[in-house]
């Protein structure tokens, strides 16, 4: 049975792998190909004190803030786009001191993840000059031993987990992204372990035809979850567009009960077995 199923597990079991206080990197960008079903299940299971990493997040981070799952967000940008406005739960959580916004430039998130990929404690990075983020966030500098030049050093970001939602994966964990890749590939190498949620489970042998299109090799992956619609209400390239009605609804929720109902409304779809 194990051999047949490979690394396939239910979304409940996959979320069980995440422990309170773990650091998770979330794939996708703003409202695109974000692992929304997974973060919903984290909220359902009441995970606490999670640290989240993302270059640019929106509904995923906002939802985790709404359900008090996270204590810290390292990111360059957290907001819905133009017509959807600010991420109000994130905003209030930060203003209320419940969540720490570790603001980065998106590129310093990338640099921190790269340090982790390369097994080094920091990465020198170009830019940041003149930004108050240097002092506010305690970015340090380092002297190039060859030229004496001073450059900003970004501390390693080593997530316990990368949570990536993709269009296709096989049961070994080989994962294939259609369309924009955003920072998912980098995250898959930077994290200690990877969880893939996939729209479709594909036959492993079909990947042999164009292995260049496999973005994450299975041996880096701990678990694969089959969740069609796992990126909703965001987009998933080639699969579905933004669910504007659902997002609008979420933005208007005020009470804890309303939020809980919203979460419940996804439960049977998120947990559906195949």
């Amino acid at each position, binding site marked *: 049975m194990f051999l047949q199923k490979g690394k396939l597990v239910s979304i409940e079991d996959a979320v069980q792998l995440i422990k309170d206080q773990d650091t998770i990197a979330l794939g996708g960008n703003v409202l695109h190909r974000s692992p929304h079903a997974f973060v919903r299940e984290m909220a359902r299971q009441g995970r606490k004190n999670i640290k989240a990493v993302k270059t*640019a997040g929106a509904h995923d981070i906002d939802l985790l803030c709404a359900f008090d799952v996270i204590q810290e967000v390292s990111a360059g940008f957290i907001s819905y786009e133009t017509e959807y406005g600010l991420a109000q739960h994130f905003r209030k959580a930060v*203003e209320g001191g419940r969540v720490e916004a570790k603001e980065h430039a998106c590129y310093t998130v990338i640099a921190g993840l790269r340090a982790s990929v390369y097994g080094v404690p920091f990465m020198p990075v170009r*830019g940041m000059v003149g*930004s108050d983020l240097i002092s*506010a966030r305690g970015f340090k500098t380092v002297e190039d031993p060859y030229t004496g030049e001073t450059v900003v050093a970004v501390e390693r970001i080593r997530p316990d987990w990368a949570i990536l939602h993709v269009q296709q994966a096989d049961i070994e964990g080989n994962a294939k992204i259609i369309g924009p890749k955003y920072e998912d590939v980098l995250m898959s190498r930077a994290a200690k372990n990877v969880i893939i949620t996939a729209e479709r489970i594909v036959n492993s042998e079909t990947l042999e035809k164009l292995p260049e299109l496999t973005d994450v090799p299975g041996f880096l992956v701990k678990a694969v979850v089959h969740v069609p619609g796992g990126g909703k209400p965001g987009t998933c390239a080639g699969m579905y567009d933004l669910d504007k009605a659902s997002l609008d609804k979420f933005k208007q929720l005020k009470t804890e009960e309303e939020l809980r109902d919203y979460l419940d409304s996804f439960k049977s779809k998120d947990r559906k077995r195949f």
Partner: protein
Amino acid sequence: MKYEPSDMMTIAIARLLKNDETVFHGVASPVPMVSILLAKELHAPNLIYLNIAGGVDAKPYKLPKSTDAPELLKGTRAIFKLEEIFDLSARGGLDVAFLSGVQIDKLGRVNSSVIGEYHKPKVRLPGGAGSACLIPTTKKAILWRTKHDKKVFVESCDFVTTQGNVHRVVTPLCIFKKDERGLILESIHPYTTLEEVQENTGFPLVYDSISYTPEPTQQELRALENVDPSRIRDIEFV
């Protein structure tokens, strides 16, 4: 011919872009997205257009509202990921990057982080995305803001998310350039006045002479209609 401030802004920005330049816009950037495609349509066919989705000169069939959407890969012949765009800028290979901001001050500095104190903010803003690294490294940063008032254009930012190689600031009312003195009023859009600009700006305007932004031409407006028939550029003006 009638035109909206969004048309003027989009066209004014397109005019700033040159042929053969590599140009990047990020998330929440409908106006720059339209401007870039407009410049390609008009005078800069060889401009290299890069975006977060990873497109290189993508030709989106239908312009998306979201400016990091999958549609922005359509027709691309190579993928050039966001990481690579930052790298390109870091090594001096990016000509133009776009940035908006919640506050822009008289020195051309930008705040996208917080209103109030950083660690105890009155308002936690979205954050500067890639700007703290891009603005100091791109050859030219073009700032745009679709609202021109005293809350945006301030004497001094509450927090400086980024500053650097600011080339121009384009608003619904005017264009600023930047030199060692800070923001210098370069031109006023045809439908406004120096007085109106000053009234809506939170610092005393500095200028060498007063000139008006040339009206959009018929060719420009036609090309704009062609590039953005569904008026995606307007969504930032709501």
